């Protein structure tokens, strides 16, 4: 279930938007919160920012392709992340700030966990 609405939960920021590459404000609305439970279709572990792509069901049963901006591969690798920390087919839960441009399904500054809510450990 994907939902975008007024922020009702405190989001623990575990993934900086781009580790200082750009401000998140022009891209993402920090007054709102978005949530997606889906399956990973692609994980790009790159600089200047990484991206996680997942398909998640929308409110009307449609499939929404979410694009989650994460930190730089450099800074994430210092915390133990690798290109294999998240794999295609993994079920994940993402809560973050939704993108501003109408019709887009981007998210940043997100807390990413496994589908059951348990944390994703870079060591896994």
């Amino acid at each position, binding site marked *: 279930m994907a939902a975008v609405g007024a922020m009702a939960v405190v989001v623990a920021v575990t993934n900086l938007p781009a580790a200082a590459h750009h401000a998140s404000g022009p891209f993402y609305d920090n007054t709102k919160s978005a949530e997606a439970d889906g399956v990973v279709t692609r994980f790009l572990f790159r600089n200047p920012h990484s*991206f996680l792509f997942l398909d998640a069901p929308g409110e009307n049963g449609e499939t929404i392709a979410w694009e989650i901006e994460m930190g730089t591969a*450099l800074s994430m690798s210092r915390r133990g992340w690798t290109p294999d920390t998240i794999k295609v087919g993994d079920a994940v839960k993402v809560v973050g700030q939704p993108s501003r*441009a109408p019709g*887009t399904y981007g998210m940043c500054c997100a807390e990413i966990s496994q589908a059951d809510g348990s944390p994703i450990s870079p060591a896994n």
Partner: protein
Amino acid sequence: MRMLETTTQTAPKHLAAWIFGALFLGLAAVVPLQAQEDTEAIPELSGLWDGSPRSRPINGPNMPWTSENFPVLNERGLAFREVFDEAISPKYDCVPSTPPALVYDPYMMEVVQWPDRVLLRYEKDDQLRTVWLDGREPTPQDYSLQGVSVGHYKDGALHVTTTHFTFDVTGFDDYNGIPSSQLKKITERYWREGEELKVTLTVEDELFLREPVSFTTQWKPGLEGYQLQAYECDAEIARYPVKFLVPKYR
């Protein structure tokens, strides 16, 4: 080695040889003295330095340019900032950042000190700045993205002056839409304070700023065994989030 050989020569048989020998002896007496003085004045700045949040607050719209040191723009700077659209920022095409942004970016930096130059290697954007210590001056052909840096050691610090930057539409920082011009001048003073490397950086740019602005920051020593990683900016992914912006112009 060459000076040692000169000082061990026997007495000259001819006047010309005597003068030649005397000149070399004079050089032998002067050069080591100058080298010794230079050595005493050179601070130990070499090493890998950590500019991540472990050392200082991460950069952002209000860091390192706070309400106390935020630049006062002239009319030209204000007008440029008014029309600036984030989407045109060159960083979304992997164009590297320049000082002052490059210096404050939250990454590792390596300093290498050679007799005639200091190398500043930045993990961010795979950038290298060379600070020339040999007295050279930039020519009109030397304009470049990172400009030309010259420096000297004084009072236990490395003093660097960088000019000859090319125009950069986001040359002031990564956040505030302030450009920098060919008149940008960056002055840096690097010194050690305990285990930390510190810098005071000043920006001048008469084309956009009413007065110089400065910040002081620091690096902690990099974690032992860490080596600079390749940044290898990916042009496709660099531009990817731009589609999430609400465009300023249509």
